C-alpha cells in the first residue's frame, strides 16, 4: 500500500517533465522521421515518395557544400579554441595574482547572446567603415580596409567570432578537470626532478584523460551545431561561403529575417535534418573510437 502510494507520488512529480519532453522533444523527432519520406511543402496533402528525398540529398551540391563549410568552421574554431583555452586553464590553475579577475574576464563573452554579438561584430567588422578597419588602417597595420564580410574572409570572420565566444567556456571546463588532479602527484614529481613540461606530459595530460575526452567531444558537437551567429552575421552569404549545414537546414523551413521569404520544403527538410544528425553522430562516434584507441595505447 505504502509502496504503491510512493510509486504514484513519484509519477505525479515526474509527469509534468515527461509530458513536456514527450510532446515538444520526442514527438517532433518522430514527425521528422515520418515526413522525410514525403513530399510536403507545408500546404496541401503530403505525398509519400519513399526514398526520393534522400536521392535528392545525395545530389544536392548546396547541401554538401554546406557540410564542407561546417567542417572548416568547426575545425577552425576548435584548432584555436581548444589549445588556447587549455593553456589559459593551466596558467590560471596555478597560484597567480589576479587569476580570479582574469577568469571572470575570459568567461564574460559566454554570458552574452550569440545573436547580439553577431550584430555587434557585423557593425564593427563592416568592410569600408567598420571600426576594426578604421583602427587597422588608422594605425597603419594594413594599407587598405579588409573586406571582412566579403566572399574571401567571411568564413574566417565567423570563425573568429566563434572563438571569441567559446574560449572562456572551455577554459573553465579544463580548469574544473585540472582541479581534480591531486596536488601531491606534482610534488612527488618535483622531488624526482621533473620540469614543468615533463609534469605536463606525464601527469596533467594522462590524469586529465577521460575529462579531456569528454570536453573535446562536447566541443566537437557544439561547434558542428552552431549556426545562430552566422545566421545573423551573413545569413550564409556571400555566395554561400558561410553556409553551414544547420543553417541550410533552417532555411528549408523558415525565412532568415522577419521580412524575408523562404521556399518551405518540410519533407526534404526533414531528410536533411536526419542526415545532419547522422553526420554529427558519426563524427562523434569516430572521435570516440579514435580517442579510445589512443587512450589504450597510452
Amino acid at each position: 500500500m505504502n509502496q504503491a502510494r510512493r510509486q504514484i507520488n513519484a509519477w505525479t512529480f515526474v509527469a509534468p517533465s515527461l509530458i513536456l519532453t514527450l510532446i515538444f522533444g520526442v514527438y517532433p523527432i518522430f514527425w521528422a522521421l515520418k515526413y522525410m519520406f514525403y513530399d510536403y511543402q507545408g500546404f496541401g496533402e503530403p505525398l509519400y515518395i519513399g526514398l526520393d528525398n534522400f536521392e535528392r540529398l545525395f545530389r544536392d551540391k548546396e547541401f554538401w557544400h554546406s557540410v564542407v563549410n561546417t567542417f572548416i568552421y568547426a575545425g577552425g574554431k576548435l584548432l584555436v579554441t581548444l589549445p588556447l583555452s587549455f593553456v589559459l586553464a593551466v596558467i590560471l590553475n596555478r597560484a597567480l595574482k589576479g587569476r580570479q579577475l582574469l577568469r571572470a574576464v575570459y568567461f564574460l563573452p559566454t554570458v552574452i547572446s550569440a545573436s547580439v554579438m553577431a550584430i555587434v561584430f557585423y557593425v564593427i567588422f563592416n568592410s569600408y567603415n567598420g571600426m576594426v578597419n578604421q583602427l587597422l588602417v588608422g594605425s597603419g597595420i594594413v594599407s587598405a580596409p579588409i573586406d571582412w564580410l566579403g566572399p574571401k574572409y567571411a568564413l574566417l570572420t565567423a570563425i573568429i567570432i566563434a572563438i571569441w565566444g567559446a574560449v572562456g567556456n572551455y577554459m573553465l571546463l579544463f580548469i574544473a578537470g585540472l582541479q581534480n588532479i591531486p596536488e601531491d602527484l606534482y610534488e612527488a614529481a618535483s622531488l624526482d626532478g621533473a620540469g614543468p613540461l615533463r609534469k605536463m606530459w606525464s601527469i596533467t595530460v594522462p590524469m586529465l584523460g577521460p575529462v579531456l575526452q569528454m570536453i573535446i567531444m562536447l566541443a566537437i558537437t557544439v561547434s558542428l551545431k552552431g549556426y545562430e551567429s552566422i545566421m545573423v552575421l551573413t545569413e550564409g552569404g556571400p555566395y554561400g561561403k558561410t553556409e553551414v549545414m544547420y543553417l541550410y537546414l533552417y532555411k528549408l523551413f523558415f525565412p532568415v529575417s522577419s521580412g524575408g521569404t523562404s521556399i518551405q520544403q518540410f519533407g526534404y527538410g526533414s531528410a536533411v535534418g536526419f542526415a545532419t544528425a547522422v553526420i554529427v553522430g558519426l563524427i562523434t562516434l569516430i572521435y570516440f573510437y579514435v580517442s579510445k584507441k589512443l587512450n589504450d595505447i597510452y
Partner: protein
Amino acid sequence: MSTLHAAAPKTVEQTARSVKSKKLLSRTLLWIFLLLVAAFALFPIILAFFGSLKTNLELTTGTTMLPKEWKFGNYLQAWNTANFARFTWNSVFISVFTTLGTLLVGTMAAYAVARVDFIGKKLYVMIQSCTLFISIGAVVLRPQFDLMVALGLQKSLWGVIIILISAHATAFFMLIGFVRAVPRELDEAAFIDGCNFYSVYFRVILPLLTPALGVTALWTFRGAWNEYILPLVFTMTQPALQTLTVGLAGLKYGIGDAAQPQLMLAGACLSMLPMIVVYIFANKSFMQMTAGSVKG
C-alpha cells in the same frame, strides 16, 4: 688560489642573477599573453559601448575609438523609436517564466528520480538524455509551431515559454546531483515527524536546495534571455511580441530607412547590459555551473 676564491662567489651570484632575469622575462611574457587574451575578450564589448555613443556619421567615418561627442540620445532613440522598451519587456517576461517553470518542473522530477525507485525510471532518464544528444536542428521548430497553433498559443509568448521549459534536460541532470547531495536522513526524519512525499519536497528539499536553485536559475535565465531562433520563428509576423535578440537582429534589415549602426550598437548594449550586471555580481555562480557539468 686567491683568484679562484674571488671568482667562485661571483659566478654563483651571476647565475642567480641570470636565473632571476630569465624568470622576470618569462613572467613578463606570460602577462603580455594573458593581457592580450583579456583585450581580445573585452575589445568587442568596449567597441560596442563606445560606438553606441557616437553619431551615425562618426561611426562610419571617424577614426578614434572614443566618441568625440557623447550621444546618450542614441539610447533614448533605441528605447522609444526602435521599440526596445517593448522588446525588453518581452525578454524579461519570457526569461522569468521560463526560469520559474524550468525550476519547478526540473526540481520535481529530480526529487522523484533521486529519492524513489519508481517503475520506468530508467526509461524516463534515458529519454531525457536522448533529448540532449539527438539534434535535428530547426526541423523540430515546425511541429512545435503546429502544436502551438493547435493549442492556440502561437500568438502569445506562452508558446515560446512552454517550449523553452520543455527543454529542461540539462537543468534536470544538474538538479539531480544537487538533490542527491541533500542527506536522505533529513527526509526520513521529516517522514517520522508526519511529513508526506509532498511536504518533504516543499519543506525539506526546496529550502535546502536554495543555493543550487540560484545557480540553476541564473543558468536558465541566461539561456532564455539569449535565445534567438525560437522567438524569431514564433514572432516573425508579430513585431509586438519580439524579444531583444529578435528585435535587434531585425534592425539589420532596416525598417524602411537606411541602416543605423549606432542604434544597432545601442540596442546591443541594452540587451547585453542586464546579463553583464548580473555577471559582475554573480560570476562565481555562472562559472560554478559550467565547472559542475564536468565534475558530473
